[in-house]
């Protein structure tokens, strides 16, 4: 197990290094680069620009800049925002909670509903329910998240008046009920894609398991259908779902960015969009790296949890 752990960890670190190189390269090699925001106005003289480049260390060779940047990132100094001078880590820290809250709630919801749809679909294979779930999942994966958000706002906020159309809570009313009330819309929107993904994978995983020999054995022992499904089939069918959830992080983060924009949810996605419009490089870079790290943690956690849940993997790894 420890060898498996170590190997996975080594791979993740290597990947993180490559990720950091790509991130650094994107922002520094793109036309404009970090200096463009100063040069844009055309009011600064070349001397001023040179002085700023000197101060920010932007005039040195790229590999040197990269090494220094990487070292500072690792030691926790992610720079300061060009906009208000706050440390990037503090800015991200104050926004990440809202995003994680949204992501966790909708993942939980998607797991429950998606697993249920998948299980029923697998048991009653080719039934009307199964076909509708299949088509429904495909359509759900094709709907643009932001548009679904607009439709939800139109139906539930404008038309029916049941839900607030944005923000995390009503100003002056921070009660739990109020917060939950504000979460319903964005969670519904963000959970749509995850539910579709979960139901598809749950269905195929369940179908794979019910064809196994041990299910036949359980059936031969005379166990009830219910007991076979829950005790024997579901437990094993849920295993691959660990991986699916871990690998779903990038999709979820992208969805969260869009959902936050539509519902004016004060999370990391909105912060990212705001920082882009201000050309706030340190924050953009910080969030880009932070989200990549989240994705890496997701896939690493999926591997490790899967290894822990399924002894066959750990031994052979």
């Amino acid at each position, binding site marked *: 197990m420890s060898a498996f752990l170590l190997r996975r960890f080594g791979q993740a670190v290597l990947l993180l290094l490559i990720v950091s190189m790509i991130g650094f390269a994107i*922002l520094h090699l793109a036309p404009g680069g970090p200096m463009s925001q100063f040069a844009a106005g055309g009011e600064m003289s070349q001397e001023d620009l040179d002085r700023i480049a000197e101060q920010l260390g932007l005039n040195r060779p790229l590999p040197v800049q990269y090494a220094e940047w990487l070292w500072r990132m690792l030691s926790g100094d992610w720079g300061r925002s060009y906009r208000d001078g706050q440390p990037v880590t503090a800015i991200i820290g104050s926004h990440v909670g809202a995003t994680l809250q949204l992501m966790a709630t909708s993942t939980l919801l998607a797991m429950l509903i998606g697993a249920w749809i998948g299980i029923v679909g697998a048991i009653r294979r080719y039934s009307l329910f199964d076909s509708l779930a299949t*088509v429904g999942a495909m359509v759900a994966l*094709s709907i643009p998240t932001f548009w679904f958000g607009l439709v939800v706002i139109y139906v539930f906020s404008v038309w029916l008046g049941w839900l607030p159309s944005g923000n995390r809570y009503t100003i002056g009313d921070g009660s739990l009920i109020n917060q939950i009330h504000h979460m319903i819309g964005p969670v519904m929107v963000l959970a749509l894609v995850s539910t579709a993904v979960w139901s598809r994978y749950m269905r195929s995983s369940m179908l794979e398991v019910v064809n196994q020999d041990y299910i036949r054995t359980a059936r031969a022992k005379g166990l009830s259908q219910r007991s076979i499904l829950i005790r024997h089939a579901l437990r094993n069918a849920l295993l691959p779902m660990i991986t699916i959830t871990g690998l779903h*992080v990038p999709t979820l983060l992208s969805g969260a*960015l869009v959902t936050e924009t539509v519902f004016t949810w004060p999370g990391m996605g909105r912060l990212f969009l705001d920082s882009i419009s201000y050309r706030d490089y340190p924050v953009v870079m910080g969030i880009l790296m932070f989200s990549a790290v989240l994705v890496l943690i997701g896939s690493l956690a999926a591997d490790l949890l899967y290894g822990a849940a399924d002894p066959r993997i750990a031994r052979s790894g």
Partner: protein
Amino acid sequence: MSASDISVETLSLPQSGFWHRPGFKRFRCHKLAVFGACGIALLTLACVFGPMLLPYSDTFIDIRQRFAPPLSGPHILGTDPLGRDLLARLLMAGRISLAVGFCAMIIAMAIGVCVGLIAGFYEGVIGAALMRFVDAMLCFPSIFLLLAISALIQPSVPSIVLLIAMTSWMEVARVVEAQIRSLKTRDFVQAAVSFGASNRRIMFRELLPNAIAPIVVAATLNVAHAILAESYISFLGYGIQPPTPSWGNMLESAQSYLTRAPWLAILPGAAITLAVTSFNFAGDGLRDTLDPRMDLS
């Protein structure tokens, strides 16, 4: 995708009735694929020829007809805040959105296939390096990457196409790499090697044609992804810039008129959903049809 290759009536299941017929799954897959293909054809035809048949140009501003709701007057799908005909604008936007989707797909496929082919063929160091690069690119959530780069470049239709292609070739590379790696061990490749065929000939003449099925499927799904990606960044304001209409940027302004003119938000989104669903269905149907190992039981 003809119906003639459905020959699965030999299997029998305990259930009976239409929904339990053994051939239903194949049939259903085909039905959805047919739906997808029809949707693609219909949208393409409508966007190419539709604007010529309409009485209104998409840029004609009729200030007296502002915010006309659909089906209420001369404008079939209503008008926008400037009194422009929404149907004409939808079709013109469709030209842009579909063209961006197709072009981005072609570039993404070219990159993805080349990377996958090289990585799969020369496994060793080159292959590992290329595939780790693919893994690393996939660590960035796609929208974050798209937005970070789109904010740095001057937005124009070609640059958006390039941008989408640059952030969506990785899945293709993975598919092709896996395919090439498994094909490489097959006898026909050994035969080509023993005939003294050059590496390039083996890659492009022997391996690539045999991997064409998953590539076609990936290409179809890639168009769906590209159309969606364009709509996302245009909606967020960093994609196709007005006055050039695209389905995504038509929605950008619609949000502020949600109470007054909901059709401005609903119709472009429905167009995107129809286009993306069509390509997804077609891709899925192709996968089932082209895969000989497709599980029918």
